[in-house]
């Protein structure tokens, strides 16, 4: 996925001095990511894991040449942090923070459009290309290098399925967690179109869930614009209408956003849909 993540991607960690920020900066470095520093207002001049901490994003980008940032800043301050990142000139921003007000997300996503900055998330586990780099919080141990692209609205469910792929000998090119909020910066369609163009990806796994119509739109895109085979799993077949199932975006509202509607749209588009997570590698192996 050379357009957003390579071996040479230089990453800044916003909120690096917090517990999550420090821990995940370390994990990303173990994965092989070039983490070049962090930003925490008021903590400039300190070091974390041997990395320089800056007060502002502009300063951090100037000193390190970073092109990517990952945001761990708490929800009430996340909007400011993402806007700052956009103005600093980085090209990709992964927003891990959960429970950001939708209005704030709408604002920074619309603002990012003006400069062509890519936002991934919010409320997402980030992205990883095994053997290259990880900008996110997905556990390092689940990955193996290969040709399958994975795009998902979920966190731990992605780990579950990626791990199952790895155990079945199906390595991954890139795994993108696009986030579980109703409004997100990178959609299924945008991620799928990146995979379609990506020379290192041969097939794609889409992991969706109830709520909204993103999977239906993805199905349309797969049918009309994708040549690579696609497989899917949709969570929430048994979810009752009107209840928010943990993720802010996972709700069957006014009869829309059911798992059944998503599964039939995908199947009609020629996508094979697994009924349980463990079945995902099986349906891929059956075809190859």
């Amino acid at each position: 996925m050379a357009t957003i993540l390579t071996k040479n991607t230089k990453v800044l960690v916003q909120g690096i001095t917090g517990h999550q920020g420090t821990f995940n900066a370390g994990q990303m470095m173990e994965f092989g990511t070039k983490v070049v520093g962090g930003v925490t207002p008021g903590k400039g001049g300190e070091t974390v894991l041997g990395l320089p901490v800056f007060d502002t994003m502009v300063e951090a980008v100037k000193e390190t040449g970073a092109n990517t940032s990952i945001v761990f800043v708490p929800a009430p301050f996340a909007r400011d942090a993402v806007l700052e990142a956009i103005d600093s000139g980085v090209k990709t921003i992964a927003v891990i923070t959960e429970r950001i007000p939708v209005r704030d997300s709408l604002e920074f996503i619309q603002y990012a459009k003006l400069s062509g900055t890519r936002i991934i998330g919010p409320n997402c586990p980030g992205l990883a290309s095994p053997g290259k780099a990880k900008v996110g919080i997905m556990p390092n141990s689940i990955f193996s290098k290969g040709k399958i692209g994975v795009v998902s609205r979920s966190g731990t469910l992605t780990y579950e399925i990626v791990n199952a792929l790895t155990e079945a000998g199906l390595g991954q090119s890139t795994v993108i967690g696009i986030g579980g909020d109703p409004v997100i910066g990178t959609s299924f369609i945008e991620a799928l179109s990146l995979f379609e163009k990506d020379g290192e990806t041969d097939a794609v796994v889409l992991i969706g869930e109830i709520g909204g119509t993103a999977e239906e739109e993805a199905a349309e895109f797969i049918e009309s614009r994708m040549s690579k085979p696609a497989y899917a799993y949709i969570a929430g077949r048994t979810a009752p209408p009107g209840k928010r199932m943990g993720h802010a975006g996972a709700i069957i509202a006014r009869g829309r956003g059911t798992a059944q509607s998503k599964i039939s749209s995908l199947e009609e588009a020629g996508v094979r849909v697994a009924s349980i997570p463990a079945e995902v590698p099986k349906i891929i192996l059956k075809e190859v």
Partner: protein
Amino acid sequence: MKLLEYRAKRLFDSYGIPIPDGYIVRSPEELLNVSFPTVLKAQVPVGGRGKAGGVKSASTLQEARTAAVGILGLIISGYTPKEILVERKLAIEREIYLSVTIDRSGRIPLLLASSEGGMEIENVPDEKIGKWHIHPFIGIQGYQIREICSYLRIEDPQRRELSELLRNLWKLFWENDCELAEVNPLIQTQDGRLVAGDAKITINDDSLYRHKDLLNLEEELTPLEREAKEKGIAFVQLDGEIGVIANGAGLTMATLDNLALYGGRGGVFLDLGGTDDPKKTEQAFEFIIKASPRVILLNIFGGMTKCDSVAEGVLAVKNKLDISIPVVVRIRGMNEQQGRDMLSGAGIIAFKDLDEACRKASELGGA
């Protein structure tokens, strides 16, 4: 969070959106200075109250009191109304639909307008609904307002009123972190006024920390769900017999679906979040016990979660709470074999495979 109608109307009023004259009563005795004809409306956070008998007209005080007694005795989708909104009945010329919501795919607010007001918008055919995206950086524009007025065939003098109302509705939506601000119906009265007949407002839950003034206790939640919300636990009550605890919302949903494959039905959805803190595990079990499931299924997939410390938490909680119902555990992550051995030693059924754990839990649940 959904606001009750009268609270949504108060918010309308503070933004200059006209509402009918009205007030709230909590008992029939509070009905005093009523101007007839009047309408009494049950205040519940769910739709369909009209069909359930929650909206009644009255033309005498006696009728109004009888209606109030009836409404306060209703149960509407599980909610007993505690308040009745008493409003002057309007002489209706026509009914319009207006709302502002969020277009998730477009990542931009969306205004909907229709001449088919007064019914649920899902029942209005798509070609009879007008749609306008409103960019948050510039707000609703004059040309859009002119388009909407023409679309609804609104002429002067109501045109001026509707223009003002549209600007105010947008402002209310944006300033209050709404997911939905709906006027349905917007009533054009026989004497030519525009008045909000009903009001539906949903505030984005994640923004509530900055809207403390709007906090609403009468939500669409069961008492246990409300308690969970106050404690910050993602918890949903369902109809089945298996209490499911997992880490992560997607994984929890997938676990419920996998159970269904074997006839098992989830009774509780509890997302533990990304943690192996034994205190959280304990809190989760305490909660799930309150929902009295027949079986508990704990599914932890942790790349970095230490399974032995999860096991330790489960054992501690089992002893402390004296849990007698069967507990099925599936854990993956660091030190997983050690964790499973600890659990098996204490009579808890521990699996590596999710599918097998679901089969076992379903069987124990009586499926």
